[in-house]
């Protein structure tokens, strides 16, 4: 008898799972506060990612055209135009550099877009050797000899005057060709990614709405975290000498070293990270993002509060860093504010890195441990 009654409990609860809901679904009970992940992905695709690549493409296009014009009629003015176009294109890149998946992801020998066009620091010897030899391969693993930061080195120079830079170009025409090839390479790669997003990938992205490894939510989330950590570890930590084994700060490791725009770019990058968190477009239009997703899950409200308090602390710490001189110089000098900023970045990591994925149930690896 005992067996039977336990059995009926078992069968009852199991059948409830499969039959119970069938009756419930049409009874107009309170709507589940389910989250529409497709709507979130649509917002990211249409209001953040595509516009970012769109803007980037127009900037890289102008940059490429300008490098050709520079070769035809080199002048200090043209050099300055080129520099401004580079700054503008590199600023746009900060809003597009977190989406290294799908068409911008790794494929075969090609690494993610950020590695292909955003590797820093640039290798001066590799660049000079390529120019001296007159041959280069923009598909190989020498990613520190191409991309934005290689162009930056060529047009901003390392402590050289405009005349010296122009003279370097004049003395070896390969220098122009290399510059143009680099700009074209960036433009091509960005164009390829943008075309994919304008084409079939956008729908593929929106429809892949699970939370498993390889789902769009997981891909976007992983790259979001990686991008955030890159600010902390590579744009600030490494130049500050934060790695074990480093015996002193290494200011020359900052991003955008030659232009001195490091701090400005870091600010843009952080702003872009904030936009992803909020699901906000660059024009200020707020949509459904990770923040809205968290509102719908267990423990989410508490995490949103903690995260945004810390985000404010990061912004305050960043504002406290003087706008000039350039980051590299500040690192070589008094770096109290930078150390404080680094600490605030560090405190932020756990909210983005583990708390968020845990609450959202996003799988970040392809095989799961069952201890979790």
């Amino acid at each position: 008898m005992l067996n039977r009654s336990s059995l009926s409990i078992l069968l009852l609860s199991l059948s409830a799972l499969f039959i119970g809901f069938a009756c419930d679904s049409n009874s107009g009970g309170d709507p589940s506060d389910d989250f529409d992940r497709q709507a979130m992905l649509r917002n990211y695709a249409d209001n953040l990612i595509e516009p970012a690549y769109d803007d980037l493409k127009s900037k890289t296009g102008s940059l490429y055209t300008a490098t050709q014009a520079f070769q035809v009629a080199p002048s200090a003015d043209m050099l300055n135009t080129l520099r401004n176009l580079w700054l503008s294109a590199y600023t746009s890149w900060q809003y597009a550099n977190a989406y290294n998946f799908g068409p911008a992801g790794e494929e075969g020998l090609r690494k993610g877009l950020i590695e292909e066009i955003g590797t820093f620091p640039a290798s001066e010897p590799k660049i000079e050797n390529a120019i001296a030899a007159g041959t280069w391969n923009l598909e190989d693993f020498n990613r520190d000899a191409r991309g934005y930061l290689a162009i930056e080195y060529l047009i901003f120079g390392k402590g050289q005057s405009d005349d010296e830079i122009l003279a370097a170009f004049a003395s070896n025409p390969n220098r122009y060709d290399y510059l143009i090839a680099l700009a074209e390479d960036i433009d091509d790669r960005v164009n390829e990614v943008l075309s994919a997003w304008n084409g079939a990938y956008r729908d593929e992205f929106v429809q892949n709405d699970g939370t498993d490894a390889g789902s769009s939510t997981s891909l976007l989330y992983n790259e979001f975290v990686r991008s955030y950590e890159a600010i902390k570890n590579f744009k600030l930590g490494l130049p500050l000498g934060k790695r074990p084994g480093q015996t002193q700060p290494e200011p020359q490791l900052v991003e955008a070293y030659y232009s001195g725009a490091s701090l400005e770019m870091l600010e843009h990058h952080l702003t872009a990270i904030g936009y992803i968190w909020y699901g906000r477009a660059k024009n200020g239009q707020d949509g459904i993002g990770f923040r809205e997703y968290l509102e719908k899950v267990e423990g989410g409200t508490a995490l949103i509060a903690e995260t945004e308090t810390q985000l404010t602390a990061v912004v305050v710490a960043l504002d406290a860093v003087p706008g000039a001189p350039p980051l590299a110089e500040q690192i070589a000098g008094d770096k109290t504010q930078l150390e404080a900023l680094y600490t605030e970045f560090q405190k932020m990591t756990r909210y983005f890195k583990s708390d968020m994925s845990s609450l959202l149930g996003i799988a970040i690896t392809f095989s799961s441990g069952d201890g979790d």
Partner: protein
Amino acid sequence: MPGQKLYIENWLIQPVSIAPLVTLRVVIGVMLLFSTLRFVALGWVDDHYITPVFHFKYFGFEWVEPLPATGLYIVHGLLIISSLCVMLGLFYRLAAIVQFLLFTYTELIDLTYYLNHYYFVSIVCGLLVLVPANRAFSLDVLRKPAISRSKISRWTIFIFQLQLGIVYFHAGIWKVNYDWLVNALPLKIWIPANDQLPLIGWIFQQKITPYLFSWAGMLYDVSIVLWLSWSRTRPWAYLTVIVFHTLTGLMFQIGVFPLVMIGATLIFFSEQWHERLWNWASDTITKPLRFRNRVADFPGFQHLENLKTQFATHRSSLITSFLVLFFLFQILFPWRYLLYPGNIFWTEEGYRFCWRVMLMEKAGTATFFVKDAKTGREGEVVNSEFLNAHQEKQMAMQPDMILQFAHFLKKHYEQRGVSNPAVRAEVYVTLNARPSKLLIDPNVDLTKIRDGWAHKTWILNDK
């Protein structure tokens, strides 16, 4: 009570049909074959064993090292061959030993990939070595008809039923905790995350679903072996086995495990059921052969009633003592957590090898600081420089792995010229969607601590 002992002994050596054992042999062989092929095809040999520069060791098995790439592929190749042999019953004893040793070896390489499922498969492979599962429907019988048997001692089947019982019962009993039953955690996190599943996704959107699944899961695990053992409930129970494991298989990335359980639980079916299965299979297999060769009798694939009824009692005091000790271990070891203070879900002291499956949602961020004793300079480690995503994820919430990584960092940076490095870690862990907290004392120098059975006093309280 000698009478009692005799009764149990007699029961255990009673002759029963070999058919269920044949089924199990084939199921495990097929599963291992499939799972190993899948593992290799997904590129996991590289990702798990070859690419990482550091491997987390099992306590007591620190000596297990990954072979060089070629060696690892040979191991997986041999694993494929041996599981094929086990499935077909060819050179069975040798194949079963090889299968057990190689599978266990691959599991022991890196603690990161520990799964209760793998532990279970390892155990079943080990137990298969002890039983004569090749004495019917096997190529060994085809080779040596004299070894064929229709009956075997009951214990050779009972040990697998017992092991399955231990697994399910513990998996269920650990679900009897406040978070699981009252808060429906972690299912409240996992279920809505799966609401895009076809056909059943909408069920996962209902608020009550996590509660129902939590309770049903607990009741299922605790009692399923009872329902499977009783013939009147067996068909229904097996239906729930299929439904339960299919659901968990859809929801979680647990690979072939659902199939393993759906296959292994067949061992609870009656002798007659298995005999019908194999008699049907033997007809199917031998029909085309018979037509071609006009030979009536294929020793390897005879109907069971045509086999010799004689059977060896398979009694060996060595095997008996081993099995008694083994099952004593199986029954006691999962409860060792009672000897440790604190919340086991937080400390994970005594958490592994206990059939605690999918019980909590836990994740952490671990930041390691390496300090040069001479200069006093402290640097922050970028974990991904040494660990893959899976390793980092598992490490960041498990104290013993944190300790191992700290010791690795000490050695690594010592070689890089950091003098007498001290390593500390700031580890924030979130458990079942609660705000993250410090898991361990962030000031303790981990290089001064050795892992052991004793309670880790440097783990902080979760309250």
